[in-house]
């Protein structure tokens, strides 16, 4: 087809939206981070002071630590567990459809909804988790800093496994039959089948899951907000950024924090993309 200038017209709402609600805010954010703008009152240029203040801010450091630990453990589990479950129900058996539909349910619940339920599950004296583990009266999941990251991780894994589960199910269907059959003839057992054929074939999916899961966990905001308002160590950096801006009114400082936060996320992504060549195979 020839040059369709009308294309510009068709994409204009979308591009306008991106410019107005994504690009401009980012640029504005960079400007704000160099000021001490508060919710009320004037703002002055203070250069990089906000950024240097970050390193003396204990709560910034602790929420960053919580976020990184949470992202690390949640992503690891959310990469492995959904795969195991997808492998588990891979074979055709009566009721397989039922279980697939059932396993998808957790993600249907919104984060505030499921977090509200987990407030009870995590109760120290009557909660189901402690009843199950025999730790009644002892483990304060939402009242003990040491248990903050585990409580976030458990919730995240229950809630978000279906997202990656579905991607793995789709990926497993593309594993080439003939190679599997050839390996069986060669006497390959289950372990060999999985590690030498299945896993290499689905590396693109694993990569996609790693990147999206990490990014999503790093920005987690609703879980700490609902579970216990970010107290006792559950506050993630996202939540602290929100608090700094909208509860403490420090717009300039919050902007600087979120800029720094973005750089961290980009760094993680960069590392992941660089390592991609080493282990992701396409069309083996």
């Amino acid at each position, binding site marked *: *087809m*020839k040059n*369709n200038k*009308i*294309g510009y017209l*068709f*994409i204009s709402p*979308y*591009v306008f*939206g*991106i410019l107005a*609600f*994504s*690009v401009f*805010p*980012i640029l504005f*954010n960079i400007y*704000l981070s160099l000021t001490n703008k508060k919710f009320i009152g004037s703002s002055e240029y203070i250069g990089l002071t906000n950024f240097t203040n970050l390193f003396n801010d204990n709560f910034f450091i602790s929420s960053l630590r919580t976020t990184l630990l949470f992202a690390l453990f949640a992503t690891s589990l959310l990469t492995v567990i959904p795969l195991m479950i997808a*492998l*588990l129900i*891979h*074979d055709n058996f009566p009721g397989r459809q039922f279980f697939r539909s059932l*396993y998808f*349910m957790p*993600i*249907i*619940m*919104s*984060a*505030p*909804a499921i977090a*509200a339920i*987990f407030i*009870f599950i995590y*109760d120290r004296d*009557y909660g189901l988790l402690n*009843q199950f583990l025999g730790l*009644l009266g002892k483990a304060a999941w939402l009242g003990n800093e040491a248990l903050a990251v585990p409580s976030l991780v458990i919730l995240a894994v*229950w809630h978000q496994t279906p997202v990656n589960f*579905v*991607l793995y*199910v*789709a*990926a497993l269907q593309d*594993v080439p*039959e003939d190679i599997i059959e050839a390996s069986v003839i060669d*006497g390959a057992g*289950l372990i060999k089948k*999985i590690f030498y054929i*299945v896993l290499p074939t689905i590396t693109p999916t694993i*990569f996609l899951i790693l990147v999206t899961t990490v990014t999503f966990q*790093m920005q987690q905001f*609703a879980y700490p*907000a609902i579970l216990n308002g970010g107290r006792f160590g559950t506050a993630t950096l*996202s939540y602290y950024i*929100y608090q700094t*801006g909208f509860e403490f009114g420090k717009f300039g400082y919050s902007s600087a924090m*979120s800029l720094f936060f*973005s750089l961290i*996320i980009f760094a993680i992504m960069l590392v992941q993309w660089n390592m991609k060549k080493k282990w992701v195979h396409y069309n083996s």
Partner: protein
Amino acid sequence: MFSINFNKKNTVIFIFFKSILIISWAVVVLLPFIILLSGALKVNESIYSLPFRWIPKNPSFDNFIYVIKEFKMLNYVFNSIVVMSLTVALQSCVCSLAGYSFARLNFKGRDKIFLMCMFVMMIPYTTSIIPLFIMMNKLKWINTFLPLILPQGLTYAYGVFIIRQFCTYIPNSYEESAFIDGANQFEIFFHIILPLLKPALVSVAILGGIGSWNDFMAPLIYLQDQSKYTTQIALRFFTGQFTSDYPKLLAAVAIAVLPVLALYFMLQKLFISSYMSVGIKG
């Protein structure tokens, strides 16, 4: 389809072991839902009992009635429905126009623009919240639904991605024959492409609709009147209110979750395939 089994005689044991695991995860998945139902139906009975009573002594809908009458839960559900519908409507229009253009129309810089847009969408949302708030304040849109609808409605990258992907599967012949018949690009888009896009638009509507329904940060930041709260914000508000009457909170959660759950039961395949389509070709 390859089979997850050992090759030899241990098959029976293995199947037994697998079944235990499959059922165990099913139980783990169902537990919170059961707790939700059980707790919400508990009246005049403490949810704090050891061991946890799965079946309430006198199940009743009193908590639901209370939450609806005294705490106006249905108002908040209605607000969510309004925001969601408008957002999805806007997304469908914007994403279909953009997705089709990026896939089929030739104009200078098309692919560069597309890449730029995708790149920008990867920047964390937290970076924009304060600038956006200041912008919305200048526009006097604080405490309205506009900041909840417009940004998400106009910049839904997943939607553009899905439509663009889908358009590559539409044969060129449709457009070409219409072109030969003298149709202009507008007519081609509205009368030929749009009807063909229906399956993809359903996926976009489901994903975008759920995203809007579950949105927590934007309503939290922009809605100040309690009457304007959406379902998710109402839940957060209730979490602070019902600390001594947990079953009522659970009743509110149940009402918040019900619409999406009902929709899921009716449209299961559609839901799952929508989530899958985002993962195509990484």
